[in-house]
């Protein structure tokens, strides 16, 4: 996936990649990465949890504006469950 991000970025498209394995991101080095150590097959969270899914999308899109250099890996340190997610507000990046 990081390889697709790199191809898009090289073509002039700003990318942010969500990954479950930090080690792969460290090797492939996508331009901007959000690492969430959650079960595979659930990059944005649990089924039916729109607040969790949108929180990840919000966090990732913000990185399109705040990442200052290529190859950074961001970790919100959110737990898989036992985390209270609210619908994110403030999309004015």
């Amino acid at each position, binding site marked *: *996936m990081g*390889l697709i991000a790199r191809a898009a970025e090289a073509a002039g*498209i700003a*990318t*942010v990649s969500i990954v479950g394995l930090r080690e*792969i991101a460290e090797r492939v080095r996508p331009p901007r990465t959000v690492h969430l150590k959650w079960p595979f097959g*659930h990059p944005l969270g649990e089924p039916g949890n729109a607040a969790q899914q949108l929180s990840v999308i919000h966090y990732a899109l913000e990185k399109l504006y705040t990442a200052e250099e290529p190859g950074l890996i961001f970790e919100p340190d959110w737990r898989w469950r036992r985390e209270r997610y609210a619908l994110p507000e403030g999309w*004015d990046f």
Partner: protein
Amino acid sequence: MSDFDGLRQNLSRMFGQVLSHVPALAQTWGRTFESVISEEVPFTRLQKPLREVRIALATTGGVHLRSQTPFDMADSRGDATFRSIPSATPREDLMITHDYYDHTNADRDLNLLFPLEHLRDLVAAGHIGSLGTCYGFMGHIEPPHLEALINETAPEAARLMREEGVDALLLTPG
């Protein structure tokens, strides 16, 4: 398919399932990439506010339209091709073909992996400018298909995005 190919395919499927549950093995798998990646990381700064940005979505989770040819599960080295998914595609027209991770929950709620509906809502609310055509790939790609992805299909998808005026891309794994 020869007996050998069948065996290789079954082993590869098992490997994918094991990877899903044993991250240490997946870390080792990550080293496969080392030889094909350049040091330099490309970087493009987004020059407009999100409310004006045209965004696209790409996943390596094997998402495609039911009407499209599924990803090739018979080749244990993966499938480097991609499927274009129009931004207005209804949820019921989409499916996942990918034997190398457990997509039971993604089948129930595709938004946890391919958040097309969330992005459409964000566009409708005026938070994001517009949504471009989205792209389904398959992860778990090994040589020689890895080279095809790097040199052919990923740049082709990027070219299509540029042609369509896409500014930003959100990527999710399977």
